[in-house]
Each structure stands twice: as C-alpha cells, then as structure tokens.
C-alpha cells in the first residue's frame, strides 16, 4: 500500500497537491495517487487514531467522517478528496470535554482491547448525523459495518443508544 517508487515512464505518476480540512485545520498536502485516505492520515500525518484493521472495507476500524458522512478511509484515495472536510477520532472532543459519544463509550465500558473503538465512535457519530436509527434493532443493523473481535457489542450498543439523542440534538460533526 505504501508504494513510493513510481514505475519507469515519467511524470504521469506525479504528486498531486490537495487541500484538506482535517478536524478543522486546513492542510495543503502532496499525495501520490495510490495513497489511501487512511495511509495519508496514519503514515503521512502521523494521525494514528484512525486504525487500520483489515484494509479491505470489511471491519470498519478505519471509519472517518467526510463532510459529516461516515466512510471507510481504507477504500478511498486521498487524492479524490481535494477540498473535503474530514473529521477523525482526534477531532471529536472539544478542548475540555469528550464528545457525547466518546463519553458514552467510557461510561458503558464499550470496548475491551480498544482497537475498533475509534472506528466505532466515528461510525456512531455518522449514524447520529444520518438520523435513521431509532430502535435497538436499527442501531444494531446500522452499526454492522464495525466489527469488534473482543465482542463488546452489547456495551457498544448501549453506549450508542444512550448518546444518539444527545448527538442529534447537537448536530455534531
């Protein structure tokens, strides 16, 4: 994934200049076409809060919010997001307070090893923005893109259920 040696044949693999707002801060970045959004965050910007689990869009650990919508950052190229506003787990809390979804995860002990947690929380904030999940069954269905190999699902569900109305009221992220 982190290929940096372009093949022979010249400048068609040129570096592209993109502008990206990440957690409210504007970045002008030079990216190779094949750098995924996830690798840009983790490898180029050392923002390692967003996790690489499967790198194939099957686990949801890499979930971030682009213009408020949750996506898998492993299955999209950074160069495709020129001009976008990106929110990662590092950008959810304010100066002095956790985001309500983060606070709910802490309160409900909604993790064990914690590796899937940033993706779970970003996904849950995206879920709140969508405004489609109300019942317990809907929360479970619409959080199914985030796997937790420790099996903390029940507590994750409880945290999301408690924080959803709070997040919606605030129109977060």
């Amino acid at each position: 994934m982190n290929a940096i040696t372009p093949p022979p044949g010249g400048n068609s693999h040129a570096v592209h200049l993109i502008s990206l707002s990440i957690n409210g801060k504007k970045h002008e970045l030079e990216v190779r076409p094949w750098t995924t959004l996830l690798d840009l965050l983790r490898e180029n910007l050392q923002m390692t809060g967003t996790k690489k689990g499967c790198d194939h869009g099957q686990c949801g650990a890499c979930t971030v919010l682009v213009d408020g919508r949750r996506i898998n950052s492993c299955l999209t190229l950074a160069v495709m997001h020129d001009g976008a506003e990106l929110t990662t787990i590092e950008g959810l809390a304010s100066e002095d307070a956790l985001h309500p979804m983060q606070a709910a995860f802490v309160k409900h002990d909604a993790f064990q090893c914690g590796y899937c947690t940033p993706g779970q929380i970003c996904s849950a904030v995206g879920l709140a923005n969508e405004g489609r999940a109300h019942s317990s069954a809907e929360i479970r269905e619409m959080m199914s893109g985030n796997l937790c190999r420790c099996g903390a699902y029940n507590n994750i569900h409880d945290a999301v259920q408690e924080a959803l109305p709070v997040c919606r009221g605030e129109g977060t992220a």
Partner: protein
Amino acid sequence: MIPFAYSKPTAVDEAVKMAGPDARFIAGGTNLLDLMKENVARPERLIDINALPLRDVETTATGGLRVGALVPNSDLAWHPEVEARYPLLSQAILAGASPQLRNMATTGGNLLQRTRCYYFYDSAVPCNKREPGSGCPAKEGVNRIHAILGASDQCVATHPSDMCVALAALEAEVIVTGPGGERRIPFADFHRLPGDQPERDNVLEADELILAVELPAERFTTHYAYLKLRDRASYAFALVSVAAALEMDGDRISTARIALGGVAHKPWRVAEAEALLVGQLADQANFAKAADALLRGAQPLEHNAFKVELAHGAIIRALGEAAGGITQ
C-alpha cells in the same frame, strides 16, 4: 497497489475520450481499490469521475425516475422518491454492504462490482475470469457460495449485488455513453452469463461510461419483498436473495416479477415462472410452482446443493410476504 496515473475530468465527453483498456473509471472505489490491493485489477490509469455532473435523481417525461450514475447507494435508498415509489429498491440497497460502504458506493459502480469468488480474488491461483484460459479452481474446490444456475464449464461465479436484483425485478434500463454515442440497455441484457467469456461480467465496453439508471414509472409500491439469506444477520453477501413484486387484483395475482440473487452470474429471472402466477391465487401451492420453474435446470456443485432448497423456500416466503402487503 501498483502505481498508476490519476486524472479527474470535469465533463463526460472528456472522460470518455480518456478511457481505454489500460484505464479504469473510479467513482466510489469500494470494489475497485480492493481489487487493486489484491493485484486483481491493475489499471495503469485511474479516471476519477466524481467531478462529472451525474448526481441528479429526477422524474422522467414518462413518469419514471432517472438516477445519475454517481448517486451514492445510501442517498438512493433514502431518497424520498425512491422510498415512496420504489420501496423494493430501497429495501434491497439497505440489505447490501455496510452504511460506510453505501455512503461511498455509487449507482453505476454497484452494477459493475465484481464477483466475490475467493479464487477470483486470489491472484496466486488460476481463474478464467481474471486470466482467461487459466482454469477454474472453484468448480472442484470450495464452492459453497457459487452459482447453481446459468454457470459454464469455465466459470461458476455469482454476481454479488443486492441492488441489481431489485433493478432486474423493476426492469430498469442502463444508460451508457461511449465514442459511438449513448445507448440504453435493458437491465436483463446488461449483465451476462459467463459462457466462454467469463472475463466479461456485462456488455459495457471498455470505453463506455454509465450515465444513469432509469426506472420505469412506479409499480409494486404495495406488494413487494426483498428477502436476503446469508451467513450472518447483516453485512454479508447473499447466499440466496429474492426480489418479489406483485400486483394483485382482489385475491388473484395480475403481475408477478421475481429475481434471484446469489445463485447465478447475473440476477436470475425466468419469464415462465412469472407467467405461471398470473391470474392465480396467492397461495403456497402456486408459489411453489413458480419456485420450481425458477430453479428448473439448477446444477449445484459439491458444496452448494443447499442453495436449491434454500432458494425454493426463500421464493415461497418472499412471494408470501409480497402478497401480504407492506408488513415485512
């Protein structure tokens, strides 16, 4: 991922001119980038079509709905016109992938997603779809998820989409453009059976671009069901899925559409099965006859014989749910 060149045209004709066998269009990228990471797809150039004006959903002159190729799956499933006029489509889309993937994946891209056959995905083994003429390890290998209908000696892969199963039942059209201009392709003719060219999933040419999917004027807003059976409750590909749509005249069926997913190289419809139901009572016995007709000629492999019985039951249940009205 093997390095490639990247460009982002802003006009359709510009994008089409850039197309070629060494290039691929990229929209959501959810399947293409995955295939590139696995070295299954190795384009030398990616043409990013996200700046093209293909994001509109609009009612057509004939009362249908034209959906731009770049409309994301989630936006389409939750579009008020789709929820009200094509609820079967909405239901099928929401049965597929995950919310994150549906936010990225597009209407055109969903049509073009490739099989999830494990052998196709594993570039270390032969696969006629990936390397024509190299062989098909799935036929004698682990073939639990593979086709029971319409397969060939060369390929037993299935088409993975849920959305396409509903589009087949709704008889959508695919509008594409290329150097020769625009053409409209009936949904039933868009995807192909593998035959002796398993490398071709559909009839789109390398230099053609999908502009839109067009739905005919709405029908089936009351009697419809999308039933998807899979190895876990959510976020898995279908082992078998059924899109069922009926129109009722009293207690008799006046129109029936049934499309199956997970069983063939394309959404599977059988005209005879649908015709059998016309004028008949919506009961188990008639549904079973339709199921028999849909599955006639099924040729299961070593590990997927269960799909025949599973599909038979699923067809009966989906038709029953559809006949019962909107209470799924």
